[in-house]
């Protein structure tokens, strides 16, 4: 019985060491990240870039396609999250207006426009 106890204890210690090594010392490194993994400020800037381009070309399909790269629930969600961050981070009014412009365009588009993205 004592023997089994120490055997299981050694497995637990080994597992703990393995987890420490795999999570802390040498974790899996992602070098192939997607835009959805970007930090909030980068995501906000990505949305701003999309809004800047949209202001010029007025291509809503292209804007939606770009926003869908962020893997949020919807493009509108991406803009909303980015806007929250932008307000908090003190983006300029012109930038906020660009994002708002894109949000408005998305909102006024047909429902299928928004639901067509994952």
């Amino acid at each position, binding site marked *: 019985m004592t*023997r089994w106890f120490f*055997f299981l*204890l*050694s*497995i637990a210690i*080994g*597992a*703990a*060491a*393995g987890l420490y*090594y*795999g999570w802390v010392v040498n*974790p*899996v490194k*992602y*070098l*192939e*990240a*997607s*835009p959805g*993994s*970007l*930090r*909030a*400020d*980068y*995501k*906000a800037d*990505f949305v*701003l*870039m*999309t809004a*800047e*381009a949209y*202001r*010029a*070309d007025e291509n809503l399909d292209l804007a939606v396609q*770009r926003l869908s790269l962020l893997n949020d*629930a919807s493009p509108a*969600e991406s*803009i*909303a999250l*980015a*806007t*929250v*961050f932008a307000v*908090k*981070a*003190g*983006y*300029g009014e012109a*930038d*906020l*207006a*660009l*994002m*708002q*412009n894109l*949000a*408005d365009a998305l909102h006024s588009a047909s429902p299928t426009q928004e639901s067509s993205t994952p």
Partner: protein
Amino acid sequence: MKEERGPWYLFTGLMLGAVLGLVYAWFYAPVKYMDVSPASLSEANKDQYRAVISAAFAANGDLPRARARLNLLNDPDPARVLAVQAQRALAEGHPEQEVYALGLLAVSLSEGEAPPNAFPIFASSTPSLVVETATPSPEPPTATAEEQLAANPGAGTATQRPSATSMLRPMTPTPTQLPTRTATPTPGSAFVLAERTALCEITLSDPLIIINTLDAADQPVPGVEVIVSWSGGEDRLVTGLKPELGLGYGDFHMTPGTSYSVHLAEGGEMAQGLVSNECETRSGNRFWGSWSLTFSQP
């Protein structure tokens, strides 16, 4: 009879546990990096990121902002990477606007400023931007959007989150229906074939069709799409992707014996019957000649 097995079972247990722990940590539940920088994106995603940066630049002409954004990707030579991507995008049939924007940013980075005639349509309709506040900061933000979301867990979709947009309502500019635009390098007159010259330049290692595009003031025009066709084939190039040779420069490698026709994608006059002629130096060395075409706006 009692068997003496020693403490080896402990070692076995440790090894077994370590293997299980590593499998769990590396494969079943690996560390997830959720707040990566653009430099960690895959190559395909970096291409898309650059395309969006270029599109934004083509819209506002803000070079410092575009440069700051490109720096996030840690490309060793952003201008060259953009030029290569533009050529690849052209070859893969990406939209003309995207190719133009990539080429334009590549040229602007090389020149240190945007070409004077690069934003004929967009600039007047784009509001001025505040670079200081919107240039992405490499510093961690004081509060992330996720934290905002955590503070408002009931908000599941954008439509359930009116606060995010309603805060901005007063700043919304009056919507103005703008005319449909097409990203063309320069407005105004169509290009005409101003010059067509056979070259016998031994310094050119390969026979080339060299194209230069100029505006009415004889200034080079980048981002002009050129179509080169021959019997059984066609290729496209964009001027300005080799900024070291000129903003309106583009070239195409000829195969001796093949007759080529060249015209601009937007139409206009076509240069036909371009065949690499045999040239000879004074010392009798023979080599294949090239052609130089200049398209200009009257």
